[in-house]
């Protein structure tokens, strides 16, 4: 992996799911590198380079945020609500957010979209399907999808 590989930020508190996602991504053929955070507070710290991620290189922007909804301290929906408040001109570039969660509840799906998720995926139970699903997401958002290149990035990508 090089610095030119697309950076994925994975927010996932279940170490099993984390490893399974790593396994799936490693077989995806997509050039990526992966940073993992384990709860909602850490997602915010990472994206805004604060708290335990205070020393992070702000120039290194994730191209994709894979967001679990059920996490300790601050859940995925709350993370989306915080990101929603970021305005154009704040100088913070937010990646597209894909909710990747076990929940298949209409309420969670609707809320996630309401607060600005760009996509919602229910983790399949079978690993083959799960793996295929993670690979398709990576392929679509990192290779097919073209993000905006300069100003207005926060606006478009965060769906504000």
């Amino acid at each position, binding site marked *: 992996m090089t610095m030119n590989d697309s950076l994925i930020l994975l927010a996932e508190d*279940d170490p*099993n*799911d984390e*490893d*399974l996602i790593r*396994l799936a991504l490693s077989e995806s053929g997509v050039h990526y590198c992966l940073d993992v955070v384990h709860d909602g507070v850490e997602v915010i710290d990472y994206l805004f380079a604060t708290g335990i991620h205070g020393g992070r290189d702000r120039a290194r922007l994730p191209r994709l945020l894979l967001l679990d909804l059920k996490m300790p301290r601050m859940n995925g929906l709350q993370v989306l609500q915080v990101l929603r408040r970021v305005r154009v001109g704040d100088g913070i570039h937010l990646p597209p957010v894909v909710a990747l969660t*076990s*929940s*298949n*509840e209409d309420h969670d799906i609707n809320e996630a979209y309401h607060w600005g998720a760009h996509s919602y995926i229910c*983790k*399949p*139970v*079978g*690993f*083959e399907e*799960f*793996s295929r699903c993670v690979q398709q997401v990576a392929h679509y958002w990192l290779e097919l999808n073209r993000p905006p290149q300069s100003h207005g990035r926060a606006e478009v990508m965060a769906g504000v």
Partner: protein
Amino acid sequence: MWPGCFLLPGCEAPSTTMSRSPIQVLLVEDNPIDCRLIRGLLEQQPSATFSVRCADRLHSAHEQLRSSPADVVLLDLTLPDTSGLETFEQLHRHHGHLPIVILTGVEDEILAATAIEHGAQDYLIKGQVDRSSLARALRYAIERKRGAEAIHRLNEELEQRVLERTRELTASNRELEAFCRSVAHDLRAPLRAVDGFSQALEPYSQQLGEQGRGYLRRVREAIQRMALMIDAMLKMSSVARCPMRRQSVDLSAMAHQVIAELESASGGPPVEWVVAAGLHTWGDAQLLWMALENLLGNACKFSRHERYPRVELGSDGPGAFFVRDNGVGFDMAYADKLFGPFERLHGDKFEGIGIGLATTERIISRHGGRIWAASVPGQGAVFHFTLPEKTGGSPPRGRLP
């Protein structure tokens, strides 16, 4: 005196009333002679238990009752401002809690019966009552009214309690449903881990040996089965709580569509489908589709081993339908297990996890209908079900085997 009375809380024994304070009587009577006479009868009681006030018009009776209450009203029906049963009705309407005894010169059995039916405590004829019978009539009237009021109050309390219980039950049902849903969700994550990591063992399969690989295969088969069960549980729970969108549904047309899908998915021998024309109901199309899919799919599955499989959808009468097949059937001894979730009467001979009929039963009962089945092993099975016929209608009660 009133044995039944002691069963009713709030109902005091008459003796207590007597010894405590005089019974307040409002006498509504416009004839001054009658008035004096009746007052005399009551106030000359040996123990002086009655205190009598008089009103000569209905209007003033209302006013007196408003300013100071009475225990009982002794009412003449013929007054300057009103007459007949209307006199009683007017007073009763405004003072429903008050026992009213009619004392009139009109000897009319039909009027008497009507007055009692409308809530009068007694109907006495002037000149036919003496000191003791009048006193007794008034005391009994008070106690009877008290008993009736207590029963009324108890009934209201009971209704209130039933309402509260129902609310509690509904709430705990909802809680249980939510709990099951969240458990089902939470089970998916560890299951995904088992499936994923057992698959990650693939590169080590040479080291596992033949037997080890067999075990691993069985682990993964069990996981797939459990995943299906969890999804089915979640689906069944959503069938029970999703909002119903009722509309007119052409069951015959829907059955033809379901059959087309079943045909394209199955690879067995051709099934002879018989669908009666013009079967209609009023219900949720999406749920009814699932029900038909389960019933027709089951019929097809369990008759597939026949030489000439035949499945029929028909009607038993208005709002009553059936799905019949000529397949393996089932032993009626297990008929009550058919609709339980994850119950399977045929073991592993047929695929499936035993959730279809449980889901179907929920769908039919959400429509207010019933479903039951009959069979002779080896001679096929028939599933009867009832559904509403039209808007706002309820399905026929249906027969039980």
